[in-house]
């Protein structure tokens, strides 16, 4: 090894080397002290141990004093110098060595916590292949401009945020959403920087680069969240402000009474509120970091502590418990054949922007053109323009009756498509057989609407929004954790009851308008519940804001949802909800454990010192051990 590499090694491992040397000298000096006649040598070696181990500590202490703060390093330096001055060399060396060792281990473990997000940052590749002037060129990823086409080969990481314009592939989005299963991407789909293209080549129009990507924004938010003080942290900080001067006053008082310098110095050293101030931030940083790697964005320690108290989770039905992909389940003609009923409804709904209307249009289109459409893309409703609907004709006029349905005219015919309320409003008789059919479908959890031609009900259409597979399991998991689940929906009572039963939810509220959801949340709060509201974060924004904890699903692409929510689930993954709630509860306990441990240790040490059971070195040992214990306990949350 040449000098240069030795120097480099020393610089990198300086703290460890210093601690090891100080420890060896301490052990050596201490053992030699037992050999008769070697007293002077023992003293010299112990002082050397204190100087080597204490140099960095004293240097920081100097800067602490210079910037007029009283930190632990100043106190430790004082203690060591004081111990040497009164001839307690062994104690001086022990205090310095133990403190240096403790600090080294603290720094090392905290580095691990601080690095938890680093892995995410390293996900984004540095270069991108762009198409410029008809040629493929490799350029730094941050220099790609919005609108440029980036080519991503199979197996490569996607370097920018963008929309797919060419190709089809499966993309692993774990860094952004925490989902382990790859997501299918084709023309028009959004992709995120840092995610991995697994199968086919993709061409992507760039929408965001550099620091303006979804992943970067997530990381910035996570850091902001980790830095925000939780209520417990602020409380402890306020406490520490009075506590430290109080300990100093106690040490001075003790010296005045006993004239025992070592006792006073010991009080100063063990009186530092180490474990108390370190515990809560470590727990919270670890928990937020863990959540981020699982695609859950926690807004901060405050929200985490609040989420730890949740005892009721309210779910919006559509899009949260269900997949939000409404499709026609059944068409029944009464005074007409089924196809005619569907076509009439499709004409009336042609220009409607309602998701039920989209589902009806899709079904009518699929029936006419099953080959090209294959029936596979019912999920992609709402993107079809009227010109594409080919043989389906457009209505002459069209009117939306909000919350009830539509009324349209076509070729001198009046078509009404809507719910029971719309029929009542227009004085249309509902034949018994249709009513029975509708009741039957609703009892299966489907939404049924009536189709009326020139004042006569000619048929009904049942629409179905499939439940998420995970829903029943999630409700059960919450119940097992002692948390109540309720469902809020705009659907009618019968549909709500059927869906609630299928999922296993006991309590539900039906026929709610969006603004009613907020009131329901307030009602539950008035009953003494700590309420979490789960929704898409856009339509439910007021209810999410009113709830004690707002949880938004599928927030990866929508900044509004992330803004409104206290907890944002990047993926549309319902199973993250029990995970997030349980992690919050575990964090709350973890913080309490750490605070409790710190208080017990400090109290015992103070009592021990005042009754002379605890010496300077022993006090330092226990103090450092308690600091490492709370860090270790907090870091358990990284692997929760």
């Amino acid at each position, binding site marked *: 090894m040449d000098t240069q590499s030795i120097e480099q090694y020393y610089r990198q491992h300086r703290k460890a080397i210093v601690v090891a040397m100080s420890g060896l000298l301490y052990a050596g000096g201490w053992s030699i002290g037992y050999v008769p006649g070697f007293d002077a040598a023992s003293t010299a070696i112990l002082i050397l141990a204190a100087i080597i181990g204490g140099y960095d500590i004293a240097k920081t202490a100097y*800067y602490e004093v210079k*910037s007029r703060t009283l*930190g632990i390093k100043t106190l430790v330096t004082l203690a060591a110098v004081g111990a040497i001055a009164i001839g307690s060399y062994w104690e001086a060396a022990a205090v310095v060595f133990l403190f240096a060792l403790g600090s080294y281990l603290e720094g090392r473990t*905290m580095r691990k916590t601080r*690095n938890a997000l680093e892995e995410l940052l390293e996900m984004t590749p540095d270069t991108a292949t762009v198409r410029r002037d008809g040629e493929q060129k490799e350029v730094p990823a941050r220099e790609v401009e919005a609108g440029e086409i980036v080519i991503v080969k199979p197996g490569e990481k996607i370097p920018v945020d963008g929309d797919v314009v060419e190709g089809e592939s499966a993309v692993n989005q774990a860094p952004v959403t925490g989902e382990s299963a790859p997501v299918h991407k084709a023309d028009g789909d959004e992709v995120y920087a840092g995610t991995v293209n697994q199968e086919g080549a993709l061409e992507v129009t760039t929408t965001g680069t550099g620091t303006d990507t979804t992943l970067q924004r997530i990381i910035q938010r996570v850091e902001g969240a980790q830095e925000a003080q939780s209520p417990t942290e602020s409380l402890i900080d306020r406490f520490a402000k009075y506590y430290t001067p109080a300990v100093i006053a106690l040490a001075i008082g003790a010296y005045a009474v006993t004239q025992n310098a070592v006792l006073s110095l010991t009080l100063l050293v063990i009186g530092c509120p180490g474990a108390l101030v370190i515990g809560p*931030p470590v727990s919270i940083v670890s928990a937020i970091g863990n959540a981020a790697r699982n695609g859950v964005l926690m807004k901060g320690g405050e929200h985490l502590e609040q989420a730890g108290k949740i005892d009721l989770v309210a779910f919006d039905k559509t899009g949260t418990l269900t997949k939000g992909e409404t499709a026609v389940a059944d068409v029944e003609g009464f005074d007409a054949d089924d196809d005619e009923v569907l076509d009439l409804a499709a004409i009336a709904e042609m220009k409607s922007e309602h998701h039920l209307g989209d589902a009806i249009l899709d079904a009518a289109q699929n029936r006419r053109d099953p080959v090209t459409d294959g029936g596979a893309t019912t999920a992609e409703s709402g993107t079809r323009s009227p010109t594409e609907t080919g043989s389906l004709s457009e209505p002459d006029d069209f009117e939306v009756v909000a919350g009830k349905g539509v009324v349209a005219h076509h070729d001198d015919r009046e078509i009404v498509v809507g719910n029971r309320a719309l029929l009542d409003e227009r004085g249309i008789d509902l034949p018994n057989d249709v009513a029975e059919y509708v009741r039957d479908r609703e009892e299966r959890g489907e939404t049924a609407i009536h189709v009326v031609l020139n004042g006569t009900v000619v048929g009904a259409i049942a629409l179905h929004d499939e439940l998420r597979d995970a829903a029943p399991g999630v409700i059960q998991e919450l119940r097992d954790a002692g948390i109540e689940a309720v469902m809020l929906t705009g659907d009618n009572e019968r549909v709500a009851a059927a869906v609630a039963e299928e999922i296993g939810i006991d309590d539900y509220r039906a026929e709610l308008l969006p603004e009613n959801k907020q009131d329901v949340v307030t009602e539950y709060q008035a009953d003494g519940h700590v309420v979490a509201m789960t929704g898409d974060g856009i339509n439910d924004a007021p209810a999410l804001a009113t709830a004690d904890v707002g949880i938004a699903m599928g927030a990866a692409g929508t900044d509004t949802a992330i803004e409104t929510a206290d907890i944002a689930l990047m993926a549309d993954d319902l199973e993250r909800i029990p995970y997030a709630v349980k992690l919050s509860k575990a964090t709350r306990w973890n913080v309490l454990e750490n605070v409790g441990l710190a208080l017990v240790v400090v109290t015992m040490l103070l009592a021990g010192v005042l009754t002379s059971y605890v010496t300077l070195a022993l006090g330092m040992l226990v103090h450092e051990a308690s600091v490492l214990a709370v860090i270790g306990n907090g870091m358990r949350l990284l692997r929760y």
Partner: protein
Amino acid sequence: MSDTTQFRVLDFDCPSCASTVERALSNVDGVEDVEVHYSTGRVEIEYDDGVSDPNAFAQTIENQGYTPQPA
């Protein structure tokens, strides 16, 4: 003109050490605002680029016994 720079210090070993670094940095000439976060190790400095020498920031952090990394 006001400018902002960031460092990352991974080896803070106690919350009060972070506060000490924060105070030391705020005493550097031309520094307008400093935030030092113990939990993430992030250091953000807002300074007057006509007055401050950005090299002095890293030196100040090193003097306190910690290793600044560019962020």
